[in-house]
């Protein structure tokens, strides 16, 4: 029986994210004591490794931000946060992909609200394996932490007993299942 193990070699070919079995999310400390998580439902990520220089790039449709409250969704789309009306896309483009031991390290440029910053994401790559449908699949999990103020997401509020409503450090996480393009 074949097994699929974690690896750091980048398989060749073009790999596209399966939107159903992938997720793009964020997590941020809320009201000092909690961790609030949300995500986006509309996104696409591609791993292109056709010429020996792998590139990972993707885009997120900001208005697809997904939280469990319509009021909060509206506020996240407002200029206080993501400004989805004027800047409806979050874009990532890698500038370098390498392995460090079992870890996948991806350097790249992240653009939110028309502001581009260099980030480094770390995680794993697993596969390839053959899916039930017969195509080849790999899994990539990556996360990075950014200061949301670097991208102009400045809103906050002071709490009655000290501290701020929303922490500035935000962890961005992608959990991707990618299918090989035939």
């Amino acid at each position, binding site marked *: 029986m074949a097994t699929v193990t974690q690896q750091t070699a980048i398989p060749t070919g073009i790999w596209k994210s399966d939107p159903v079995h992938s997720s793009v999310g964020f997590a941020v400390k809320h009201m000092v004591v909690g961790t609030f998580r949300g995500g986006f439902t509309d996104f696409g990520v591609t791993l292109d490794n056709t010429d020996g220089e792998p590139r990972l790039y993707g885009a997120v449709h900001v208005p697809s931000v997904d939280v469990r*409250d319509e*009021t909060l969704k*509206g506020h*996240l789309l407002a200029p206080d946060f993501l*400004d989805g*009306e004027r800047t409806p896309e979050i874009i990532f483009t890698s500038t370098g992909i390498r392995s460090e031991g079992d870890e996948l390290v991806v350097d790249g440029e992240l653009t939110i609200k028309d502001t581009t910053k260099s980030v480094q994401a770390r995680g794993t790559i697993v596969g390839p394996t053959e899916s039930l449908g017969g195509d080849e699949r790999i899994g990539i999990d990556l996360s990075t932490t950014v200061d949301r103020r670097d991208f102009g997401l400045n809103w906050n509020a002071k709490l009655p007993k000290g501290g701020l409503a929303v922490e500035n450090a935000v962890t961005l996480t992608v959990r991707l299942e990618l299918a090989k393009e035939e």
Partner: protein
Amino acid sequence: MRLLGISGSLRRDSHNTRLLRAAAQVVPASAELEVFDGLKEVPPYDEDDDVDPVPAAAQRLRDAIADADAILIATPEYNSSLPGQLKNALDWASRPFPDNALRNKPVAVIGASTGMFGAVWAQAEARKVLGATGARVVDVELPVPHAEAAFAGDRLADAQLHEGLARIVDELIGATRTTTELVELAAA
């Protein structure tokens, strides 16, 4: 303190316009609530028409919002969402983006329907839209179900709903004060 009420219903005997009249009765003496009467005249939003001068009815809406300290919207529900003319009006009010009349304006949404859920989904959708415009949405709701039997004159017959409406009006007025602090913090 000036509150502007906007009823999402155009109907002459609208339950939601009546709900705003009920709200006017629980507004404290230090404030007044005026109900906007020009929603039906607001033309369909068209960027080609959104040039100086904008259509008079759209300008009137923008001015009414700009002149108010806070907005109270009462929405009916069609197909699990807010009615098209109300959404259209919010689209007009949201331009020019982002420094529009709604930006940082405290807004609360209430609603009535003849069904058993009291326009609760329309209220949620309206809060989302208003939030996206940059308004300060007070996170409250007041679903008034079975609207045809909910009023005694221009007052909500049910004591809990009546008290709930009064609380929302208080919170909306309170939000005009905290808004200032939030804006200053965001700018700091």
